């Protein structure tokens, strides 16, 4: 006998573990025990096997690895005695789950035990099967379970019924076999069998509509009778819970009736009376009774229309809602949400109570109530509801503010009756919880403000006031300085004063002051500071008297460590210093932002799932970038007079994106631009010896977020997370461009060939084809044409693709290109993100002309969409 394993009993081990004062001590005890158990396992010690397994289970519960005990379970299960089997099955369920392959070895033992003469052993096997059965085991053992559904002892029948549920969940096809035995169980008297049988039938109905029809016809009346009997049964001590006979059975029956009554008037009619009885007679002072009422209300709401019953159900929910027990209120809110689709009028009546629940101290209730309120808002009640919610925003928990803010913003945007009200509410939210306001929301606010010319003055004055009281709310600061930059003149001369407004006196230097505060405030981030710089530039033009001061403030950022700010500061200084004549036209007011375009983009960019930074490349910050871009254009090309102000908004966005590349002096306006912008993204993606993405001269949020990520890998992550929007912004660009190259518009299944690359000496064309059975894969036949009268030798084409693509290159037909001749090469690209991301490729071509090396590089991003 092993001297180690015989040492400690289970309780001694538990005591030793409990006596450990530190985690290290506990680990030491466990290590010692595990070593002993392993030794005992190796010795194949039979006497202590079950004790070892019990210890292992305890160790497992503490979170230590116990995989080495898995085989012991199987050995114990295979041994003949009941005690060994009992602990063996327990270990099996505890230490293993259905995905482990060891489990396959147990199928045979299970089958044998399910045919055992001892009914308790049959019970153990069924229990294990029900808890960890996999799809394969389900197929193998379904016939045994089916047989055991008719076993003489009810305790086995009920276990078999639950096993059948598990089997159906794993393999829905097997449900057919259980329809008849399931129906037979509904006639049982034993409660355990009845409960499990009813549940089995519910489960079968959910996977097979034929079975549903069968049960509806054959069993509805019987079930109604059973429910009536149980509801009217006299006191029975065995099943009594708080004065109700077997609430569990009640609930199971109501659930099955719900399934049967849904969408069938006849069946619904059949159960009306008993539902009315349960709904009106059940005691509601104990949890058990409320559980039944709750289930009953759900059933009433789901089955076919019966006015009287619905009223009863809504009344029960009303009572629930005013209950002092939080649990009951919680389920009431839950249920009202579902009742909303059935009878929204009735739910509206409880609006005030629900609003109170939003302010509850319990997070679960708050969350439910807020969701419900959100669904209840309409044009008529939005004003009082929004007012209440915004007031509550001031006192709510920090954890809850994010949710609440998002919902308020959404409500206000959706149902605002007039713009001024919308602006007012948004201002309140921004001042109260600006940090929680998502980017697209404040972008939308700016879009609305620019679209309301008569409110420009009002908005800028209100923002100015708000900025004085809550200057720590970043988003408020951004919106405010944007507006001050645009409408500084309206701020100072009180133009467009509305009747509701209190007049304020703001001097020109006050306006500069507040922007200066923003730029110097320690919490302001780069975007805010960059926006403030633009605002200052604009102010300097609107108020020539402040020009000197603005110049000095801008100048202070010349030494900023952030490249973005430094660059802006330098450029703006030179605009102020040297180009007074063009300044005013440079910083003209932004053209009205197109609401339709913005909302379209927003809808397309999945506000919920896309990280917020993803949208900034589309939204208003571009307006800022544009303002920066415009002077630059002029700086580069001073001979031309004022650039004509862009007229259409899509053109704006084009220019915005141009801003990305304007640091390259060679940038030519024209078709190259969009591909350049795309190329930058691609360059970053591949990070082939390009400078860090920070170098791009743009204020985009994406780029800002990249600043933290200096490693190429990290920047790749950032890009891929924002990529759903990146391609679309490129496409938009092209749309705005008027005569779009036809190859991009073409989305037909037969893909036209594209010109992938063209220089003065070389032209590359791609012929695209797809095999129907592999939609992700595109076959590309590249044709390289020599455009010169020289022979190219040692011709080599290389290509690189981002990670989501796979590229396979076949050898070229020849490695020399005759004068004005061509060669071919095939390749295969597999796009794992087909439909989501377009194919992009970076390529390099090397060849020799008269022994001289030539290298050409380029990006190919004019592949048709959807490849």
């Amino acid at each position, binding site marked *: 006998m092993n001297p180690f394993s015989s040492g400690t009993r289970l*309780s001694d081990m*538990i005591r030793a573990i*409990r006596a450990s004062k530190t985690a290290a001590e506990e680990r030491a005890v466990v290590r010692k025990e595990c070593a002993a158990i392993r030794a005992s396992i190796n010795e194949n010690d039979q006497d202590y096997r079950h004790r070892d397994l*019990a210890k292992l*289970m*305890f160790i497992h*519960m503490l*979170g230590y*690895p116990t995989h080495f005990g898995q085989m012991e379970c199987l050995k114990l299960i295979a041994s003949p005695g*009941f*005690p060994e089997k*009992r*602990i063996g099955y*327990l270990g099996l*369920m*505890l230490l293993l*789950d259905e*995905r482990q392959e060891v489990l396959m070895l147990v199928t045979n033992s299970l089958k044998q035990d399910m045919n055992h003469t*001892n009914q*308790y052993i049959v019970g153990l096997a*069924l*229990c294990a099967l*029900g*808890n960890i059965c996999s799809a394969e085991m389900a197929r193998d053992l379904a016939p045994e379970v089916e047989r055991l559904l008719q076993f003489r002892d009810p*305790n086995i029948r009920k*276990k078999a019924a*639950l*096993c059948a*549920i*598990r089997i159906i*969940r794993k393999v829905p096809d097997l449900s057919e076999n259980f329809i008849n035995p399931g129906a037979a169980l509904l006639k049982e008297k034993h*409660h*355990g069998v009845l*409960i*499990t049988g009813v549940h089995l039938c519910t489960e079968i109905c959910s996977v097979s509509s034929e079975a549903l029809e069968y049960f509806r016809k054959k069993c509805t009346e019987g079930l109604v009778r059973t429910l009536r009997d149980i509801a009217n049964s006299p006191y029975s001590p*065995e099943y009594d*819970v708080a004065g109700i006979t*077997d*609430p*569990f*059975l009640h*609930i*199971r029956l109501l659930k099955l009736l719900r399934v049967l009554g849904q969408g069938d008037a006849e069946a619904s009619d059949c159960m009306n009376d008993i539902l009315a009885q349960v709904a009106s007679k059940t005691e509601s002072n104990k*949890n058990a009774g409320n*559980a039944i009422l*709750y*289930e009953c209300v*759900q059933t009433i709401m789901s089955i076919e229309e019966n006015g009287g019953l619905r009223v009863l159900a809504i009344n029960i929910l009303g009572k629930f809602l005013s209950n002092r027990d*939080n*649990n*009951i209120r*919680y*389920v009431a809110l*839950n249920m009202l949400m579902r009742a909303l689709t059935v009878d929204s009028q009735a739910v509206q009546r409880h609006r005030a109570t629900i609003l109170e629940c939003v302010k509850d*101290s*319990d*997070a*679960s*209730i708050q*969350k439910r109530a807020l969701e419900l309120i959100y669904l209840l808002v309409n044009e008529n009640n939005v004003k009082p509801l929004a007012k209440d919610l915004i007031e509550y925003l001031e006192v709510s928990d920090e954890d809850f503010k994010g949710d609440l803010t998002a919902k308020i913003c959404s409500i206000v945007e959706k149902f605002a009756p007039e713009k001024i009200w919308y602006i007012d509410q948004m201002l309140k939210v921004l001042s109260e919880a600006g940090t929680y306001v998502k980017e697209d929301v404040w972008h939308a606010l700016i879009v609305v403000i620019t679209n309301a010319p008569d409110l420009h003055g009002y908005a800028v004055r209100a923002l100015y006031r708000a900025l004085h009281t809550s200057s720590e709310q970043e988003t408020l600061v951004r919106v405010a300085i944007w507006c001050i930059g645009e409408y500084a003149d309206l701020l100072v001369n009180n133009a467009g004063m509305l009747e509701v407004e209190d007049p304020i006196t703001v001097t020109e230097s006050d306006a500069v002051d507040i922007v200066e505060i923003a730029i110097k405030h320690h919490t302001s981030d780069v975007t805010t500071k960059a926006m403030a710089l633009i605002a200052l530039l604009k102010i300097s033009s609107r108020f020539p008297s402040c020009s000197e001061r603005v110049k000095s403030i801008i100048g202070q950022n010349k030494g900023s460590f952030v490249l973005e700010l430094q660059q802006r500061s330098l450029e703006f200084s030179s605009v102020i210093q040297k180009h007074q004549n063009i300044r005013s036209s440079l910083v003209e007011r932004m053209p009205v932002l197109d609401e339709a375009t913005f909302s379209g983009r927003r809808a397309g960019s999945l506000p919920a799932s896309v990280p917020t930074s993803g949208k900034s490349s589309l939204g208003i910050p571009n307006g800022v970038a544009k303002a920066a871009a415009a002077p630059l254009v002029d700086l580069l090309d001073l001979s031309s007079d004022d650039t004509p102000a862009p007229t259409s908004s899509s053109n704006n966005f084009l220019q915005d994106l141009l801003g990305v590349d304007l640091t390259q002096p060679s940038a030519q306006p024209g078709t190259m631009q969009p591909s350049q912008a795309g190329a930058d993204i691609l360059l970053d993606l591949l990070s082939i010896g390009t400078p860090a993405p920070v170098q791009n001269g743009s204020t985009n949020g994406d780029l800002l977020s990249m600043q933290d990520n200096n490693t190429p890998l990290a920047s790749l992550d950032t890009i891929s997370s924002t990529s759903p929007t990146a391609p679309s912004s490129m496409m938009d660009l092209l749309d705005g461009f008027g005569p779009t190259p036809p190859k991009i518009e073409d989305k037909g299944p037969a893909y036209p060939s594209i010109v992938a690359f063209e220089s003065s000496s070389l032209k590359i064309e791609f012929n695209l084809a797809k095999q129907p059975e592999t939609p992700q894969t595109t076959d590309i036949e590249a044709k390289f044409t020599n455009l010169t009268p020289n022979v190219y030798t040692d011709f080599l084409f290389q290509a690189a693709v981002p990670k989501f693509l796979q590229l396979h290159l076949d050898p070229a037909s020849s490695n020399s290109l005759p004068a004005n001749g061509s060669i071919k090469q095939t390749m295969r690209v597999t796009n794992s993100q087909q439909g989501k991301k377009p194919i992009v490729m970076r390529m390099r071509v090397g060849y020799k002309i008269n022994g001289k090396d030539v290298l050409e590089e380029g990006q190919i991003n004019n592949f048709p969409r959807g490849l």
Partner: protein
Amino acid sequence: MIHFVLLVSRQGKVRLTKWYSPYAQKERSKVIRELSGVILNRGPKLCNFVEWRGYKVVYKRYASLYFCMCIDQEDNELEVLEIIHHYVEILDRYFGSVCELDLIFNFHKAYYILDELLIAGELQESSKKTVARIISAQDQLVEAAKEEASSISNIIAQATK
């Protein structure tokens, strides 16, 4: 359906776990850590339901132990509270006013009882008496086997003396 059952002490020690849906070992310990963090920190007057990863966790505190069950969104939370209570009552009857120590030293018994109450994450038996009867019948089988074994070893011991 009940996806898992957790018994956690007020100090965050796990006393019983039962998984009816497949969760990998790593996932299990993550779930336990996450949930015990949420549940142990909730105030006493709050409701017994926590929304978590698209599921609901119904919990109830009995003395120093939290009984938690994770269910689907559309399940009846009040019924699950009742199931928890049902389980506790059976434990109470079996151990005779059960306490945490009973469940530590006889954790396997707690599992056996749970297995007579739930299978595949569904309720199996609504009668406390029936559960108690089945458990005691099985305990007797074990006792009988033990006695037999000890009598055999006695015989062997005497024979080899």
